[in-house]
């Protein structure tokens, strides 16, 4: 009887134990499959061009001063008058090499601004002739024989993530510049000033609610208030303002946690020395809470980097480096929104995964940073 009971219990224990192992295994394998999938699909697309180029091809007309007197023969495709070497591309000429004192370094666009040609730029029109209507040798000859000001239509190849990367950074900076001070001040109020009562209750209630609202609702709200009512159009400012509200709960609660960690005695000591409340906050409390505030900032950056639903309807999905804070030219896609756009518009899962790899790296870096700060902090206060 006793042994039976014992066996029964052993079996039950074993069963539950294997369930625990199974669940853990599921969790871990999910992580591996997701990351493996992203890396498998995305890594092949990552190269130097992907990281350094613009997203769209950019077409520009430039004027260059060709000097036919600089005669000279070089390798196949060498244009002595311009000091460049080209090769045959798909209905165009691809610049493969530019000499140091080449005339194309002094090229100007139609606004008379300097527009330095680079390697891999393609020439699609020489003067009035489209390269696609010319044979390669004719196009070469045309280039070689030209003298004086020559108008070229030049296309700079895209396919890179630079604009999205820059836009992401702009949006991070803007959002933090707005939400950071407000969130930290709010946390100071809640932890240092507020007395229990209706105001405190409603503020806490609001923060808890904000934390629970899904980002698509933030997107709707941002679109209605910032984009339409305040006429900011799809812009980084509209996006950042929307994100700022979304970030408030994170910043406030993380900062508050850090403020709570500061021992009471610090405050009392400061008051005892005759410091005012404000002085105590500025000189004692905030320095002590700095690591916590940094963690709040890092958490916020993570949130911004990963956000899409709140940004699509407020900052748009255009791959460009924003110029200005509001209006048509300030619309910008972050890495994440562009990734979504890619899947939806082109069905191109591979390029999307390449962006995802970049995102993963960013997120891992952020996680490590927040870990390191926390560890440093724990070491200092000896709470570890």
């Amino acid at each position, binding site marked *: 009887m006793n042994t039976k009971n014992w066996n029964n219990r052993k079996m039950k224990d074993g069963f539950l134990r294997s369930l625990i192992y199974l669940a853990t295994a599921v969790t871990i394998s999910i992580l591996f499959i997701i990351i493996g999938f992203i890396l498998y699909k995305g890594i092949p697309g990552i190269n130097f061009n992907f990281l350094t180029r613009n997203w*769209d091809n*950019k*077409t*520009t*007309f430039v*004027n260059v001063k060709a000097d036919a007197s600089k005669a000279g023969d070089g390798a196949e495709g060498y244009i002595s008058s311009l000091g460049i070497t080209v090769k045959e591309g798909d209905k165009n000429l691809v610049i493969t090499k530019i000499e140091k004192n080449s005339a194309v370094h002094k090229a100007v*666009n*139609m*606004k*008379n601004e300097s527009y330095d040609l680079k390697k891999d730029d393609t020439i699609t*029109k020489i*003067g*009035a*002739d*489209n390269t696609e209507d010319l044979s390669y040798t004719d196009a070469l000859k045309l280039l070689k024989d030209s003298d004086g*000001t020559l*108008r070229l*239509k030049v296309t700079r190849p895209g396919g890179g993530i630079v604009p999205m990367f820059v836009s992401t950074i702009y949006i991070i900076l803007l959002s933090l*510049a*707005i939400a*950071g*001070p*407000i969130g*930290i*001040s709010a946390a100071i109020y809640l932890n240092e000033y507020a007395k229990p009562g209706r105001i405190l209750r409603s503020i806490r209630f609001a923060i808890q609610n904000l934390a629970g609202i899904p980002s698509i609702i933030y997107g709707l709200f941002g679109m209605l208030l910032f984009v339409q009512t*305040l006429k*900011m159009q*799809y812009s980084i*400012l509209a996006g950042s303002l929307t994100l700022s509200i979304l970030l408030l709960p994170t910043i406030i609660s993380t900062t508050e946690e850090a403020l709570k960690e500061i021992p009471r005695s610090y405050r009392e000591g400061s008051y005892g020395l005759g410091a005012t409340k404000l002085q105590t906050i*500025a*000189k004692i409390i*905030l*320095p002590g809470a*700095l690591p916590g505030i940094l963690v709040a900032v890092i958490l916020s950056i993570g949130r911004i980097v990963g956000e899409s639903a709140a940004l699509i309807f407020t900052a748009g999905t255009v791959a460009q480096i924003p*110029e*200005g*804070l*509001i*209006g*048509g*030219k*300030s619309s910008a896609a972050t890495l994440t929104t562009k990734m979504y756009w*890619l*899947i*939806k*518009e*082109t*069905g*191109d*899962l591979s390029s999307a995964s390449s962006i995802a790899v970049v995102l993963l790296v960013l997120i891992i870096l952020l996680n490590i940073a927040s870990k390191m700060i926390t560890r440093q902090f724990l070491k200092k206060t000896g709470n570890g």
Partner: protein
Amino acid sequence: MKLKNKVLAVLLTIALVGVLGGCGKTNNTNSNTSDNTTTEPTQAATETPAATDDTSSTDNLSGTVTITGSTSVEKILNDMIDEFTASNPDVTINYTGTGSSAGISDSIAGANDIGASSRDLKDDEKSAGLKEVTFAYDGIAIAVNPANTLTDISVEDLAKIFSGQITNWKDVGGKDATIVVVSREGASGTRSAFEELVKLEDAGGLTEDATVAEGNGSVQTTVAGNENAIGYVSFSYIDSTVKALTVNGVEGTPENAKSGTYVLSRPFLFVYDEAKASAAAKAFVEFSLSDDGQAFVEKHGGIKLD
């Protein structure tokens, strides 16, 4: 320690200034910085950028042109805008994809300079007397999985499939398998063009069973990933991952689409108020019809005018 405190005090001050300054940030709007350099080569309105520099130019185009409307033409328009503004640097063109209907009603209301539409105007829209300029045609391809044995389908069968009256491939000559219908989201121009062209309303409207995918790309991926799927996409989205069916026995080629023998085709239009349109707006429309403009139509799988 002391230094640290100072740094913090500074940080705090900056932070607080940030709070106060936060509201004032909106002032940096995008004031159009059109710095007119007089020396730059000018370009006459109707000339293509190919024109030589020494042509005596009539006027120097400037100003902002707002285009709203169809999202189907996004790629074509973006390239056209790129090239047009490259040769007319003082012109700024803003294009926002809002959908054809919104673009047309914007034009009627005068809220844009040019409306882009990927369908013919309806009668009530025509009554506003806008000028319509067709700058390209587009064909809607019927996409199935390459593993599908079917090669042709009639418009009537398409209507029946998309309305859910035919649910098995064997009823249209394929193998015995359930048809997976893939359609587009409600506001899509391609969807309304498709539904109009196959007269889906008369057949009872889109089946509730249909998968709705957002964007041409999503339709293409879904069809490519499912042996029994059928969807519709712009011509340019047909590649090796999906197979295009002939419709009523006619292959979906640009020629057939333009001539109308391939029934699933539609025009891409600009609509604008001729009396009010700025010189820059008109020049852009002219440019879209020029060889250079048309090159982009072809590049993105649209059908050139000729």
